[in-house]
């Protein structure tokens, strides 16, 4: 099964896909923006400031999702000795980091009209900041470490330690008294968010996921060409 993850096989797909993904991203994000900024209703308590949710929440979800994926790819890559999994993980990291920063900044902007402060050392915000630090460590490790065998172990270690923070971030609002409200969307029980707000949130999440896929494809192609450049030197 793992032969399908060989770079030669993947490149023929990944090199053609970005333009289509970009097209779908532009279409879906345009629909999402109209829904989020014009068609969706105000919140009865927070008024129009609730619209920040449509960029803040998808960014937070995707940054947590990408970090989890990077961790599992690193573990599988190490266990099954598939270096390409590390390459896929590395290519996902920049978009995960940017989504993490977006979640922090838009959360801070949302905090001012809602809580009266730009920043609070609340459990959810602090754990998201810690996640950003792990993303930064992961990306810096790939930049500064030159020995390939070492980099796989170092990045694996960073992701495993960082992954402990993921459930803490998710359940921080339930475990501690925080400024953040408890989750409004639950896959197992009934969500407390109205469909008129849930719909734009889902569309924006889909758009953000497409954007991370686009960046991943471009980054992954770049990494493959880098490897081929080194290969040409050896011919």
């Amino acid at each position: 099964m793992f032969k399908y993850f060989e770079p030669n096989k993947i490149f023929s797909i990944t090199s053609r896909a970005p333009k289509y993904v970009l097209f779908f991203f532009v279409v879906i994000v345009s629909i999402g923006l109209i829904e989020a900024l014009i068609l969706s209703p105000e919140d009865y308590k927070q008024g129009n400031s609730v619209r920040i949710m449509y960029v803040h929440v998808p960014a937070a979800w995707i940054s947590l999702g990408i970090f989890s994926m990077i961790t599992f790819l690193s573990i599988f890559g190490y266990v099954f000795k598939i270096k390409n999994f590390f390459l896929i993980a590395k290519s996902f990291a920049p978009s995960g980091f940017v989504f993490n920063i977006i979640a922090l900044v838009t959360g801070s902007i949302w905090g001012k009209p809602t809580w009266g402060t730009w920043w609070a050392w609340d459990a959810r915000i602090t754990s998201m900041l810690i996640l950003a630090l792990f993303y930064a460590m992961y990306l810096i490790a790939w930049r500064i470490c030159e020995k390939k065998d070492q980099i796989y172990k170092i990045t694996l270690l960073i992701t495993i330690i960082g992954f402990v923070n993921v459930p803490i971030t998710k359940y921080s609002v339930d475990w501690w008294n925080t400024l953040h409200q408890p989750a409004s969307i639950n896959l197992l029980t009934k969500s407390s968010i109205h469909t008129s707000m849930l719909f734009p949130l889902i569309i924006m999440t889909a758009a953000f996921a497409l954007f991370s896929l686009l960046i991943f494809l471009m980054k992954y192609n770049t990494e493959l060409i880098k490897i081929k450049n080194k290969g040409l030197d050896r011919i």
Partner: protein
Amino acid sequence: MINNLILMDGYGIYVWSAFVFTFFSFTSLYFITKKQYLRENKKFIAKFGNLNSERAAIAKNQNINKEILSNISNI
């Protein structure tokens, strides 16, 4: 209606700055990634061009090299 959309009952500054920051980050990340991709592609073409005919024949036999060459400036 336009005024409502811009001002949003006083929350406009917060809402618009959050959206502008998000899409500014997207645009920056997209162009940085694209620049890196094009730079590596350029290097690849230059290195491929510098190979002598025997080495170029070996390189051309590798499928991924053919794919890279056929997909230049694809994004």
